[in-house]
């Protein structure tokens, strides 16, 4: 697996049926084990990009490889390696917290014994043990966010897509999640994070891509970007690249 990028996206194009061009030939490579941030304004194409990798969106053209596996031709292998914590809460209302974890593992082919073991570990890690028998639709927003996060890790993915993982989360939980994400990354998990919180990207990501109007507008480490745009922080870079001169 050495040298094979975790994610290799080439010339990905996606036009919605409304005529909106969401991705305009995006090419992107995320190295194995990297912590990669994808930043951009609403509607820039961040979620469409993630959805295109997991076939929730159907790209018009282009190719996607996950650790060398074609995301469409070898979709089973590719999808097994991806965990997604989506922006919108999408928990199955018929299930309890524990069932959510176990069913998710089953959807990814994880054997039952292994799934139970993994569920115990993640319930503990995300302080969900007391809520394990509770139906997910009765949980608070922050709790639901934790379940989403834990669910995405149930099948032990190699790449984790975190689409605005801290949206609507209180400060305490945000810092806890940051700590956990860092720990996962240092354990070798590749992470692709989309976020609106620029300080979050700066604090966590080794490499950042700015997406705007369906195109990658800039890419590099935060130090490289700051130097290239003569900025003091990522927020300034963002405003210069995406903000169309708002920064002055």
């Amino acid at each position: 697996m050495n040298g094979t990028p975790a994610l290799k996206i080439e010339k990905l194009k996606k036009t919605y049926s409304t005529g909106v061009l969401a991705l305009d030939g995006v090419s992107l490579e995320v190295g194995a084990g990297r912590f990669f941030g994808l930043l951009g304004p609403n509607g820039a194409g961040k979620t469409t990009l993630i959805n295109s990798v997991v076939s929730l969106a159907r790209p018009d053209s282009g190719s996607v490889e996950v650790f060398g596996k074609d995301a469409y031709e070898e979709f089973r292998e590719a999808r097994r390696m991806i965990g997604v914590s989506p922006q919108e809460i999408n928990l199955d209302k018929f299930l309890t917290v524990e069932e959510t974890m176990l069913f998710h593992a089953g959807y990814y082919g994880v054997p039952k014994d292994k799934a139970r073991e993994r569920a115990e570990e993640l319930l503990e890690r995300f302080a969900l043990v007391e809520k394990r028998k509770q139906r997910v639709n009765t949980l608070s927003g922050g709790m639901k966010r934790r379940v989403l996060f834990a669910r995405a890790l149930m099948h032990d993915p190699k790449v984790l897509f975190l689409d605005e993982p801290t949206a609507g989360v209180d400060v305490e939980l945000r810092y806890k999640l940051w700590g956990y994400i860092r720990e996962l990354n240092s354990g070798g998990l590749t992470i692709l994070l989309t976020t609106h919180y620029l300080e979050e990207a700066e604090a966590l990501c080794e490499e950042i891509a700015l997406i705007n109007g369906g195109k990658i507008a800039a890419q590099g480490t935060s130090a490289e970007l700051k130097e290239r745009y003569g900025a003091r922080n990522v927020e300034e870079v963002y405003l210069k690249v995406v903000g169309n001169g708002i920064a002055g």
Partner: protein
Amino acid sequence: MLDRPFRTLLSREVLRFTRVWVQTLIPPLLTSLLYLVVFGVALGGRIKEISGIPYLEYILPGIALMNLVTGSQMNSSWSVFDAKRERYIDEVLIAPMSDFQIALAYSLGGTLRGVLMGAGVFLVGAPFVGLSVAHPGLLLLIGVLSAFAFSALGTMVGALATRIEHISFLTSVVIQPLAFLGGVFYSVEMLPEVLRIATLFNPIFHTVDAARYATLEISDLNPYPTVAVVFLLAALAFAGAWWAISRGPNLRY
């Protein structure tokens, strides 16, 4: 094809209707009991035997099939539509499962609920007419095929629906009238020529008629070609379900 991801989705479908069995299984059985009491016990005494069979016994297989068809169709259409509306279907769509497997799991979940409801009607009717079935194997075959056909139809409509009214339309405007006009309460031989021919185009009539043959050895049509017709319906409906899961609006966009 029947791998763990598929089996997990199927077991989730079963859990869905068994968890709320008070809502999903009991009310339809009570409704069936009412049909039996009103049409069979209260009015049945005033209705002549049909083809030498007491009226209550005559209508029982049809009521079972009516329940089976509506139960299986409602189960899948609501399950898929709910999952789509609240977006938890995304978890399934991005899992390592093919669209074929997803459509099959939803369709089989509804099939099981339909078969349980059909069997439940026979049990509810047992105290009134006994539990003798002339051809149990054929009854099971026709029951499973009919449930699968209508469950697959429900899966298709659930995947295609963009508003809750689309689901209600299928149940109230399409399935229920077809079920009532499907020869449950009468023999088509009793109908005027035009209505008799029109009934032949009603798929529920074919399932009811075959079930009646399997139970009582009387029918309006030869039951074996009917099995082929229902098989064809099931295949067509499943092709539609598969296509809809793959191409339906607001699923994979």
